[in-house]
C-alpha cells in the first residue's frame, strides 16, 4: 500500500514539475510554435504589426498530461457505464420500450393485454407467470383480470377476478374472485413447553412464544370470494362480503417443518363458508397523500364449516385511523395513527382453525417481526407514524408499532405489547400506486421490507 502511495506521490510531483515547466515556457512565449499559435493572448516579443490575426486562430479546449492522469478514475467510471448508456439511447431511439409494451397489448384500444410476471420473494418465493386483463369486457368499466404465478409444485397461485364498478347503477361495485393458492412455507410458533395434546389457541403464536419455537406448515387453498359495495356518498360506504374456501394444511418445507404438530385444530382439511358486512367512514383529506382527517372501518363476518361441525366462529374487526398535521410545520408533515382491534368468538364448542386466528407480524401491521409471528383469538394493534415529504411523490416515514394478541379481552396487558420501530421511504403515484421500502427493528430482529401495498 505504502509503495503505491509513494509511487503516486512521485508521479504527481513529476507531473507537477513538468507541467509547471510547460506553463512557464508558454507564458514566456518560448514553447512550441503550435502552442504559440494557440495562445494568442500571450505576450509576444515582436511589434504589434507582426502579430498574426487572432481571428484566424481557433480556440481549443486542451488538457495537460496531469489533468489527463488525474481524470483516469473518472474515465474508467464513464467507460463502465457506457454500455448501459448506449443501450438506453438505442432503446429510446428505436422506441423499443413502446414497442415492447405494444407487443403485450391485444387490441388497438389497449384495453386488453397479456403481460409476463416475475416474482421475487412474497408468498410464492421467486417465480414466474403471466397476468392478463380486459378492461371493457361485456361493457365499459367491467374488468376481467387473471394472474398466475408459479414458483414450484408446492408454491404457486392463480387468481381470476371480475369487477363491475357500475353494477345495478353507478353506486354499486361488485367483484367476484376465484383463487387457488399453494404455499409450502408459512410460519407458526408453538410454545415448546406445551404437549401436543394440550395445544389450543392460547399456545399457538402466543405473546410468550419465542423465535426458536418456529415451525412451518404448507397451505393449499381454493376459494371463491365476492364483494358487493355500495357507496352512499364520498364519505360512507357499505359492503357485503361472502366467501367459500377449502383449505388443506400439511407440514411445511421451512424451518421446523418436521415438528409441525398435525393434531392442531385446523391441521386437516376444512371447507369454510363466510358471510359478513363492512362499513367505512372516510373523513380524510388529501390524495395521494392523506394529510388530515379520520377513517373508521367496521367489519363483521360469520364463518362456519361446510359439511362438518368442527369449526365455527365469528369475527369482529374495528379500525380507526387519524391523520394530524404537525401544527408548527406544514400540512404535509403529519402524524398518522392507527388502532385495530380484532376479536374472534367461537360458535359454542366449535373451534377456530389456527390459520384463521387473528395474526400480527406483517409488513402491514407489526413490522420488525416475522410474518404471522403472533396469533390469538384477538389482537390489538397500534401504529404511530410520522410522515413527511422528501420529494414530489416520495415520503419518508418514522414509525413505532405496538401490538399484542390475546385469548380473552381481560388478558390484555400493557406488558404484553410487542414493539417494532423503524423508518422508510414511500413512493406514491397520483393513481394511488404505492411502493414502500422500510427497515424495522424489533426485540427479535431487523427486517427490510419492500411492499407495493400501503399499510394504512
Amino acid at each position, binding site marked *: 500500500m505504502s509503495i503505491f*502511495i509513494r509511487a*503516486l*506521490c512521485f508521479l*504527481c*510531483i513529476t*507531473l*507537477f514539475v513538468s*507541467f*509547471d515547466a510547460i506553463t512557464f515556457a508558454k507564458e514566456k512565449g518560448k514553447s512550441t510554435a503550435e502552442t504559440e499559435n494557440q*495562445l*494568442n*493572448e*500571450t*505576450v*509576444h*516579443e*515582436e511589434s*504589434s504589426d507582426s*502579430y498574426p490575426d*487572432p*481571428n*484566424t*486562430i*481557433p*480556440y*481549443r*479546449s486542451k488538457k*495537460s498530461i*496531469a*489533468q489527463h492522469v*488525474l*481524470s483516469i*478514475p*473518472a474515465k*474508467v*467510471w*464513464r467507460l463502465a*457505464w457506457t454500455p448501459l*448508456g448506449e443501450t*438506453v*439511447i438505442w*432503446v*429510446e*431511439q428505436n*422506441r423499443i420500450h413502446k*414497442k415492447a409494451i*405494444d407487443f403485450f397489448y391485444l387490441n*388497438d384500444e389497449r384495453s386488453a393485454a397479456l403481460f409476463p410476471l416475475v416474482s421475487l420473494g412474497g408468498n410464492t418465493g421467486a417465480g414466474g407467470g403471466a397476468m392478463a386483463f380486459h378492461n371493457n369486457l361485456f361493457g365499459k368499466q367491467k374488468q376481467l383480470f387473471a394472474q398466475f404465478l408459479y414458483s414450484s409444485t408446492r408454491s404457486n397461485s392463480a387468481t381470476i377476478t371480475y369487477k363491475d364498478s357500475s353494477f345495478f347503477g353507478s353506486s354499486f361495485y361488485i367483484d367476484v374472485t376465484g383463487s387457488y393458492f399453494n404455499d409450502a412455507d408459512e410460519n407458526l410458533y408453538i410454545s415448546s413447553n406445551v404437549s401436543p395434546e394440550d395445544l389450543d389457541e392460547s399456545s399457538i403464536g402466543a405473546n410468550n412464544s419465542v423465535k426458536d419455537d418456529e415451525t412451518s406448515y404448507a397451505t393449499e387453498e381454493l376459494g371463491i370470494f365476492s364483494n358487493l359495495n355500495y357507496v352512499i356518498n364520498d364519505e360512507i360506504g357499505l359492503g357485503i362480503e361472502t366467501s367459500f374456501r377449502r383449505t388443506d394444511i400439511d407440514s411445511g418445507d421451512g424451518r421446523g417443518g418436521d415438528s409441525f404438530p398435525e393434531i392442531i385444530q385446523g391441521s386437516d382439511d376444512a371447507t369454510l363458508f363466510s358471510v359478513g358486512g363492512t362499513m367505512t367512514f372516510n373523513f380524510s383529506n388529501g390524495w395521494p397523500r392523506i394529510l388530515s382527517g379520520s377513517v373508521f372501518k367496521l367489519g363483521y363476518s360469520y364463518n362456519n364449516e361446510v359439511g362438518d361441525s368442527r369449526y365455527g366462529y365469528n369475527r369482529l374487526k374495528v379500525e380507526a385511523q387519524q391523520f394530524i398535521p*404537525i401544527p408548527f*410545520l*406544514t400540512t404535509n*408533515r403529519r402524524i398518522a395513527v392507527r388502532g385495530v382491534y380484532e376479536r374472534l368468538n367461537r360458535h359454542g364448542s366449535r373451534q377456530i382453525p389456527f390459520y384463521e386466528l387473528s395474526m400480527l407480524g406483517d409488513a402491514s401491521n407489526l413490522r420488525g417481526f416475522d410474518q404471522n409471528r403472533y396469533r390469538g383469538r384477538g389482537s390489538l394493534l397500534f401504529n404511530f407514524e410520522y410522515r*413527511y*415529504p*422528501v*420529494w*414530489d411523490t*416520495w415520503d*419518508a416515514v*418514522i414509525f413505532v408499532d405496538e401490538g399484542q394478541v390475546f385469548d380473552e379481552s381481560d388478558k390484555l396487558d400493557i406488558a404484553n405489547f410487542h414493539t417494532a420501530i423503524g423508518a422508510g421511504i414511500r413512493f406514491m403515484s397520483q393513481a394511488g400506486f404505492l411502493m414502500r421500502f422500510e427497515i424495522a427493528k424489533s426485540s427479535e430482529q431487523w427486517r427490510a421490507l419492500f411492499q407495493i401495498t400501503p399499510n394504512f
Partner: protein
Amino acid sequence: MKIKRILIPATLLLVAFLLLNCSGPKYSLAPIKTSDPDRMDIPKPDQKEENQYWDLADYTFFYQVEKVLDLGWSAKKIGKGLNVARGKPADNLNVLDEVPNSSWYTNRHYHNPMSIEELKRGPNVTDGPDYKTPWMITSGKFEGGTPGFTIKDGQGDYYIIKFDAPTFQEMGSSAEVISTKILYACGYFVPQNTIEYFDPTTLKIGETAKVEENGQKRQMTQGDLVAMLKTTPRRADGKIRALASKYVNGRPVGVWNYRGTRNDDPNDRVNHEHRRELRGLRSISSWLSDADRRAANTLAVYTTDPESGNKYIQHYLLDMGSTLGSNNIIPHAPKYGNEYLIDPRTIGLQFITLGAWVKPWEFDFRNLNPEFPSVGYYESEIFDPAEWYATYPNPAFEYTTFRDAFWGAKILMAFKDEQIRAIVGEAQMSDKRAEEYLIKTIIERRDKVGRYWFDKMNPVDKFRFERKGEELYLMFNDLAVDGKIEKAADSKYLYTLSYKDKGLHHQKFVENSVLLISKNGNGFFDEILQKNQFNREEEKIFSIALQTQRNDKKLSKVVDVYFYYPGFQNEPRVVGIKRHE
C-alpha cells in the same frame, strides 16, 4: 499512522490543486480577437438524435459521480472551498473577457445597442407565413405536449404551426415569441417565431401529409384537422391564434450537447461546458425561468455561409415555449428553477431535518390557478438567482464561474424597461393586465439577477480612452448605475495606476466613472518609459486596478485594466481586462 493516512491523500489533492490552479494570460498586444474561425468548410455531419432518458439519468447520477472521480475537479472544488482556488475559466475568451463571434454566438445588444425596431424584429427574416396563397400542410403532430403541424406557404417557406392549450390561451405562444427575441438580442441563434391569427380555411392538407398515431404513420385527413382545431379558441372573426416557427436555413443534423464536442465537426474544438456563452446562459435562463435548457431543446444545423460558401454547423437554442410562466401547455411548476427534478440536496435536507426544513416554493400553488392564465407561473419574490437550477444538471451551468455569470448578467441588464415592454408587445397578449404583470416581473427578475451578480464582481466595463485638451482620461461604465440598480451618487471608485506591478501613485477615490490618467497627454508615459529606458513593446504596458464602493461600505472585487502605450503621440489602447472573482 492515522495522520499519515490523512496527510498523504491531502498532499496529493493539494499537489493536484496546485497543478490545476495556474492562471491564464492577462493581456495581449495582438489585435483583439473578435471572431472564432469555427465556420470553416466541413463535410456533412451525421444526424445526432436526442436521447432524453439517458441525458436525464446521466447528468443526474452518473456524471455527478464522474466529476468527483476526476481528481483535478475534486482538487479544484476543495481549493474553492478553502478560498484558495477559483473555478476553471471558460476556454473561449479574448483578453477583454468577452466572447468572440462564432457559430454559437454573435455579440449583439450589449455591445451594439439595438433599436426598439430591431429588438421587436429579432431573428425574423420574413413577416411570418405568406397569406396570399393557402397554407399547405405537409405533416401533422397529434401526440405530445403541443399538437400542431408543418405548413408550406406560397413563398416556399416551411413553418411549424403550434397552438396554445385551451385553458391557458396565449401562454405558450407568448413565452415563445418574447424569449426568442430576448435570446436573439442576447446573441444566440434562435429560429423565427411569430404570432399568427389565421382563418382555418387557409389550410389545405397536402398529399404527402402524414400523421403518427400509436407509433404508425398514415395519411392525414380532414377529420384529423377538424379534431385538432375543435378545441382551439377562436376570435370573434373566426381566426385562430397560433405560433408560427420558421424552419431555419440549412439541414438540421440533430441536437448539440452541453458537454464535450461533436466528433464529426472539426470546427467544434471547445468543450461545450467550457464555452462562456453557454455558461453565461445560466444567468439569462434564470431571468427568463428557462429551466428546460437541455440538449433536447437545441438544434445543430448544417448551413452554408452566403459569403464564403463554407458549409458548417450553426448552433441554435430551441423551444422557448417553456420559458417565463409557461411550460408549453401548462404553467411552470414552482419546483422548476428552484431545484433539479431529482435533487439530492433538497431531498437530503428534508430527509435529514425530518421535514423541518420547508422549501420556500413548496407551498406556492399559484401555478394551479394562476391569476393570469396567459402568463402562467412567473414570479419574482421567491426567485433567487444564486439558487436557480435547470430541470436537471446542465454541465455548462455547473461550471459557471462568477465571471461567466457576471457576463450573462451584464448582457441581460442591457435590456431597458422600455425595450422589454416593446418586446413583450410582440406577443400580442389580449389581456393588458396580464401583459403589465409580465413586463413588471421580467423587469423585477432582471434587476434581481443583475444586483446579485454585480454585487459578486466589480460591475465596471466598456473601458475607453478620451482626451480633453492635454488631459487623458480612462472612461468606463458602471453597469449597476446604468441599469439603475445603484445610484451614481452612492458610488465611488478606488484606483491605482501601475507600471510593472509598481504603483505610480497612491490609491485614489473618484466620484464618477472617469479616471484622470495623465495631465500632460502622452508626456506622462514617455517620461516613465524614457526614465527606465524601456523600448520593447511588451514593456509599454500599464495597468489600473479599479474597485467600486457603494455607500462607503465594502469595496468590490478588483478589475485590472491593462493598456498599451505605443509611443510617438499615439493613443493608448486597452489590451486586457482581468476580473477578480
